[in-house]
C-alpha cells in the first residue's frame, strides 16, 4: 500500500490528492532535488544513496543519453558529446562566455543563445538543462510515489530575465510545472532562517561551480527581505579548477594537449582541489594519450597562491552589495556559506577576514539551496501549516527605466528595489509643438538603450502644442507583487494618459528574450564615457535646433557680420555633432552658445518690448 507522511493538523490530503512538490537546485556543476517529508526538508538521494546529480549530460553516437555520474565518467573519453556546466550558457551568446577556447565543444553561434553540436544533433542549453531536470523529476517521482504537483527551481540572484526565462523553458520541456523561480540566496536563507530562527542581517556568500553571488538579506519575524545582491556570473569553482589545470600545464611543461587529455587534466585538477579541503597537499598523476606522464604535488600553499586573485575577485562585489544596502561589514550578523566551493579553506579564511566573523556553515553548503527551495515549494503547493504565513519579499534584479533623448536610459526603479513598488518621474518635450511622446521601457544596468533590453514601447498622444520643455509628463512605473510591471504616462495639464502592461518574463518573444543585455558591471567606465558623449550630442542638437528656429524668426536683429559668425559656429557644431570627439563637441557648443548670447539678449528685449507696448505700468502683472 501507499506510504503516508505526517501532515500538519487539518491538512491530511485526500487519497490521490497528494500535493507532491520539490525544490530543485539546478547548479552549474551539480544539481539536487529536495522535498518536505513529514514536516522536514530532505534531499532525495538516488538508488545508490548519492544526493548530488552532476550537471553533466552525454549525447553518445549510439545508445540513449546519459545524465549525471555515468555521463561524467565519459568526460575524458567523449569530451565533445559530454556537456558540462551548461548553466553558464543559458541565455548567453558566444561572446559572453569566458575561456571558450579551452572548451572542447563544437559551438554554433545562433541568434541570441549559443548551440552545441553533439552526436545526437544540435542541442541548445535549454534542452540540456531540461534533460538534467527530467532526471531529477524521475528521481523525485520514484521516491515520492507519484507525479509532482510542481517544483521551485532556484536561479542565481542576478540571472536576468532571459536566463530566468531559459530556466523556465527548460523546466517546461522536462515536464515540470514551475511554482516559482527562487533566488538561490533566498532559498539558503529559508533553509537557515526557518531551521534556526535567527533574526538579523545576513550575507549569503555563494560560490558555486560557475557563478558567484553575494546577497544581503534581512531576516526578522519570519520575514525575508533581500536588501541587495551582486556578484559575478562568470566566476566559480570551475575557475579554480582551471587555475590548477593551467598550473599542471606549466609545471609538467606540456605542449598543447588533446581534447580528451584536457578533460582528464581538468578532472585531476578538480580532484586535487577537493582533496586539499581536508589535506595539506594533493598528488596529481595522469597518463596522457601522448604517453607523457604527469606526476605532481600541489600543496595548499601553492593552491592558495595561484587562486588568490580569484578569491579577491569575490570581495569586490561583496563590498558593492554592502554599499548598495548602506551597510558596513560589521553590521552583518552572520555570513551563510553556500556552494561546494566555499569548502576551500582559503575562501573560508578570506570571508572570515572580510566580515570579521566566522562564517556559518552548519548546513551542508551543497544542499542548503535545495532544502530551502523544497520548503518554499511545499508552501506554494498548499501544504501550509497554520501560523506559517511568512512572507517572502523579492527584489527587482535589474533596473527598469525609459529611453530619453539620444538613446540614453533614465532609470526609474533601481535594481534591488523590493516589490511591490511604484516610482514616478517627470519628463518633458524636446521640440516646440511636440504633441506626442514615444516611450520605450527598458531593463538593464547599462547607460545606453542599445545595451539594455527593451520590454515595451508605447505612445502618449494628445499633448497640447507648447514650446520645448514646457509640457509636464509624469511617467509612473508600478511593479506588483507578481512582478508585473505597468507603466503610465500622463500629461499633467490636460490629463491625457496612456499606459502599458509588461510582464518582464513573458511579454517578449523568444528572439527578444535571448538577445541578452550584457553584463553592466564590466562596462561601467565605458558606459560613463558614452553617456557623457551622448549627452553632449543631445545638448548640441538642441542648441542647433533652437538657433535655427530663432534665425528663422528674428534674423533682422543681426548685422551681416554677426550672422556670418553665427552661421560659421553653427556649421562647425553640426560637423562635429555626430562624431565621437566629446571635446570638439563641447568646444563648438561653447562657441555657438557664446556667439549667440547677444542675439538671445536682443530677442529677449524684443519680446519684452512687444509684451509691454501700449500698456500702462499698472496693467502689467509683475
Amino acid at each position, binding site marked *: *500500500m*501507499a*506510504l*503516508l*507522511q*505526517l*501532515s*500538519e*493538523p*487539518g*491538512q*491530511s490530503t*485526500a*487519497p*490521490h490528492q497528494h500535493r507532491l512538490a520539490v525544490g530543485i537546485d539546478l547548479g552549474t556543476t551539480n544539481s539536487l532535488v529536495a522535498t518536505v*517529508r*513529514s*514536516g*522536514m526538508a530532505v534531499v*532525495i*538521494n*538516488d*538508488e545508490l544513496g548519492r544526493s548530488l546529480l552532476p550537471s553533466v549530460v552525454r549525447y553518445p553516437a549510439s545508445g540513449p543519453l546519459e545524465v549525471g555520474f555515468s555521463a561524467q565518467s565519459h568526460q575524458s573519453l567523449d569530451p565533445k558529446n559530454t556537456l558540462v556546466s551548461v548553466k553558464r550558457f543559458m541565455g548567453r551568446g558566444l561572446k559572453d562566455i569566458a575561456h571558450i577556447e579551452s572548451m572542447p565543444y563544437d559551438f554554433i553561434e545562433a541568434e541570441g543563445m549559443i548551440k552545441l553540436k553533439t552526436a545526437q544533433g544540435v542541442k541548445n542549453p535549454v534542452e540540456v538543462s531540461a534533460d538534467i531536470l527530467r532526471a531529477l523529476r524521475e*528521481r523525485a517521482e*520514484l*521516491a*515520492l*510515489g507519484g507525479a509532482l504537483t510542481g517544483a521551485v527551481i532556484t536561479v542565481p540572484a542576478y540571472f536576468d530575465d532571459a536566463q530566468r526565462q531559459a530556466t523556465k523553458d527548460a523546466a517546461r520541456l522536462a515536464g515540470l510545472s514551475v511554482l516559482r523561480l527562487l533566488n538561490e540566496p533566498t532559498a539558503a536563507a529559508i533553509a537557515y532562517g526557518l531551521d534556526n530562527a535567527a533574526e538579523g542581517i545576513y550575507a549569503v556568500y555563494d560560490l558555486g561551480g560557475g557563478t558567484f553571488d553575494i546577497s544581503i538579506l534581512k531576516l526578522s519575524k519570519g520575514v525575508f527581505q533581500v536588501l541587495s545582491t551582486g556578484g559575478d556570473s562568470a566566476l566559480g569553482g570551475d575557475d579554480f579548477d582551471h587555475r590548477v589545470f593551467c598550473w599542471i600545464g606549466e609545471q609538467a611543461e606540456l605542449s598543447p594537449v588533446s581534447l580528451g587529455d584536457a578533460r582528464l587534466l581538468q578532472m585531476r585538477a578538480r580532484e586535487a582541489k577537493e582533496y586539499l579541503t581536508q589535506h595539506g597537499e594533493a598528488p596529481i598523476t595522469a597518463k596522457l594519450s601522448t604517453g607523457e606522464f604527469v606526476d605532481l604535488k600541489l600543496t595548499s600553499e601553492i593552491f592558495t597562491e595561484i587562486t588568490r586573485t580569484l578569491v579577491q575577485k569575490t570581495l569586490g562585489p561583496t563590498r558593492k552589495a554592502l554599499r548598495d544596502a548602506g551597510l558596513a561589514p560589521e553590521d552583518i550578523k552572520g555570513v551563510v556559506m553556500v556552494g561546494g566551493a566555499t569548502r576551500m579553506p582559503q575562501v573560508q579564511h578570506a570571508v572570515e577576514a572580510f566580515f570579521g566573523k566566522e562564517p556559518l556553515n552548519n548546513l551542508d553548503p551543497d544542499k542548503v539551496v535545495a532544502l530551502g527551495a523544497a520548503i518554499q515549494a511545499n508552501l506554494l503547493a498548499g501544504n501550509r501549516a497554520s501560523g506559517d504565513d511568512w512572507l517572502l519579499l523579492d527584489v527587482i534584479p535589474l533596473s527598469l527605466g525609459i529611453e530619453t533623448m539620444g538613446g540614453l536610459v533614465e532609470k526609474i526603479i533601481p535594481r534591488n528595489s523590493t516589490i511591490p513598488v511604484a516610482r514616478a518621474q517627470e519628463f518633458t518635450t524636446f521640440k516646440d509643438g511636440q504633441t506626442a511622446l514615444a516611450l520605450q521601457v527598458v531593463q538593464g544596468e547599462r547607460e545606453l538603450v542599445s545595451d539594455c533590453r527593451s520590454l515595451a514601447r508605447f505612445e502618449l498622444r494628445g499633448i497640447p502644442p507648447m514650446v520645448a520643455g514646457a509640457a509636464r509628463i509624469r511617467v509612473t512605473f508600478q511593479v506588483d507583487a507578481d512582478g508585473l510591471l505597468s507603466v503610465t504616462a500622463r500629461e499633467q495639464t490636460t490629463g491625457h494618459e496612456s499606459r502599458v502592461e509588461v510582464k518582464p518574463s513573458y511579454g517578449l518573444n523568444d528572439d527578444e528574450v535571448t538577445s541578452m543585455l550584457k553584463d553592466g558591471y564590466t562596462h561601467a567606465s565605458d558606459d560613463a564615457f558614452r553617456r557623457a558623449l551622448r549627452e553632449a550630442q543631445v545638448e548640441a542638437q538642441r542648441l542647433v535646433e533652437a538657433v535655427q528656429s530663432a534665425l528663422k524668426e528674428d534674423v533682422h536683429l543681426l548685422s551681416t557680420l554677426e550672422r556670418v559668425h553665427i552661421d560659421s559656429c553653427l556649421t562647425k557644431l553640426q560637423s562635429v555633432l555626430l562624431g565621437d570627439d566629446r571635446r570638439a563637441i563641447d568646444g563648438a557648443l561653447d562657441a555657438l552658445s557664446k556667439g549667440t548670447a547677444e542675439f538671445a539678449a536682443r530677442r529677449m528685449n524684443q519680446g519684452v518690448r512687444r509684451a509691454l507696448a501700449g500698456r500702462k505700468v499698472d496693467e502689467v502683472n509683475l
Partner: protein
Amino acid sequence: MGVTLSEAAAKHVAGFIAKRGKGIGIRLGVKTSGCSGMAYKLEFADSSEPDDIVFDSHGLKVLVDPKSLPYLDGTELDFTREGLNEGFKFINPNVKDECGCGESFHV
C-alpha cells in the same frame, strides 16, 4: 486493543516532532472519502479534543477521535522504506478490502 506504533514508527515520529519544534503527539483517524470508502488521516497533534481517546506508545501520545476508533482498533502504525520511498504504513486488522493504491480502504 487500541492503536500502537511500531518501534521504527515511534522513532521517526519522535524525530519529526522534535524537528518541528512543537506538538503533543500524533493524530490518527479515518475520513470517508477516496475510491474505496475510507481514507486514513495522519497528522501532527498540537492539542487534544475532549472526546479524544489517547494511547501511549513508546512514550508518545497517539490521539484518535471516537468516531474513527472502531475502524482503527488494533492498528499498528509502521514506518517502512520501499525503494527510494519511505513513509508510514497502517497495519489495520479491520480492513477487508482496499483500493489498488492502498490509500483508501473499507471494513
